[in-house]
């Protein structure tokens, strides 16, 4: 996967932007309702930059796409997305060829980067609760010899379970944190956005891998 990451971004954008309304509604319940527009503007900016990134190293493709997202739609989600992409990219820095085996390293670096940036822990009702279990599941599937497709399916299933699990959590951080107990009962919008993105990646894997 060298320019494949560009195809994945395109797939994510095409699938997630039409779901912006859902994200808006979720964010309006326990946040400020801007996650729909954030995803739309951010992914459009990523798309607009893809052509220029063709043929460049994956680390650059990831980092530059992340920065483009946040520049167009600075926000909690935006800066976390940018951080994840930069740190994920850094994990495969100077590497010419990046493959399925690197997904775990990229994902772990991305999660750690977002934890460093946002200072949230697993269980605080954030997008981490969607992404971290997905990486774990992918790693486990890979180490038990599953295919990319099977590993991706396992990751998305874990992500979906993690996202659903945020419903019962009480937010400990950021905007939703101010709601205290009233945040319980609502699915976390950021986690949902991550889930939509991974589902889009899964569809891309099914179609292309």
């Amino acid at each position, binding site marked *: 996967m060298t320019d494949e990451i560009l195809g994945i971004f395109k797939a994510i954008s095409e699938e997630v932007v039409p779901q912006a309304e859902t994200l808006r509604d979720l964010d*309006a319940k326990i946040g*400020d*309702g*801007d996650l729909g*527009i*954030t995803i739309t503007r951010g992914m459009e900016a990523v798309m607009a930059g893809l052509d220029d990134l063709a043929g460049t190293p994956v680390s650059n493709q990831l980092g530059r796409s992340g*920065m483009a997202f*946040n*520049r167009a*739609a*600075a*926000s*909690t989600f*935006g*800066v*976390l997305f*940018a*951080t994840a992409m930069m740190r994920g990219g850094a994990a495969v820095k100077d590497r010419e060829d990046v493959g399925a085996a690197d997904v775990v390293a990229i994902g772990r670096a991305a999660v750690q980067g977002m934890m460093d*940036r*946002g200072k949230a822990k697993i269980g605080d009702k954030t997008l981490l609760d969607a992404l971290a279990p997905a990486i774990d599941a992918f790693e486990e599937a890979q180490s038990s010899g599953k295919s990319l497709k099977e590993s991706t399916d396992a990751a998305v299933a874990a992500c979906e379970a993690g996202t659903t699990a945020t419903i019962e959590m009480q937010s400990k*951080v*950021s*905007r939703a*944190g*101010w*709601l205290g107990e*009233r945040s319980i009962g609502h699915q976390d919008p950021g986690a949902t956005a991550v889930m939509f993105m991974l589902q889009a990646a899964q569809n891309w894997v099914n179609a292309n891998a």
Partner: protein
Amino acid sequence: MAMRKIINHPDHVEDETVSGILKAFPNYLKRVEGSTRALVRADAPFAGKVGIATGGGSGHLPLFLGYVGEGLATGCCVGNVFSSPSSDDMLDVAKAVDGGAGVLFLYGNYSGDSMNFDMASEMADMEGIRVLTTLGADDVTSAPIAERERRRGVAGIVFPFKIAGAAAEEGRDLDAVHAIANKASFNTRSMGVALSGTTIPAAGTPGFEVAEGKMELGMGIHGEPGVQVGPLLTADEIAGQMLDRILPDLPFSSGDTAAVMVNSLGATAPEELYILFNKASEILADRGINIHKTIVGEYATSMEMAGASISVCKLDDDDMVKLLDAPSYSPLLSSQLGR
């Protein structure tokens, strides 16, 4: 378009506002070259002096851009309505206001802003600019005092702006400016009440509403839910409920000297603010708190939201008093701050 707003296009609000401000006061502000949303004092940077960079979402004027001025912040980056500016713009401002003595980032505690400012701070560090950060986190209703670092920043950030701005103007070093900014921030407690919602232009419909005849105590300036929705109380009752939460929180005690601000969230008229202050000053006098300075007006708004907030800042010593009273100037602020 079913908004009561005088605009051209929802997507142009921020840029046209900045353009209008630059045209109105060309000698006061300039754009950082190559950026539309990074603005600094026309005469910045100031060699040997600490630069103060701020920023935040649009829709809160005079916050944040209006706090750039003599004896105030040195530069500001401007986000979309109710959204954080990007770390790129923050870095641009940091570079443009650095006079060699380092930069203080001073802004309100919202995760989008603080994560972006933190990222900008790391980037500035890589460029050899030392950055320290002070957050406005004055809203007592947003988290218990034990978790003060989670509290959001509202209108009380006026006090750190004035006090840190004066300290920087005096030529104090970055650590000293940071220390006094932190003290001013820590010593400030605020609480707000909303009587109506507000409409983000790009959304077109109110993000939240407060029914007529109702009020929401403790609501945030983007409509973050408050602690209590109920019937609209009288001004005296509202002042009482706010100070009942504000005063024990620091706490402010008999014999303390304080500055008090009554701020309009936008639509609420000056008349109402003075009615609130009329009672608030009585309560403070009853509690033995000496008001050194009074600020009443629009200092941190949410576009056309109806509502008000009260902020109290404890002035520990003569140094804080002197810095708060130091001259300052911005054309977007009231004369009350100037002297």
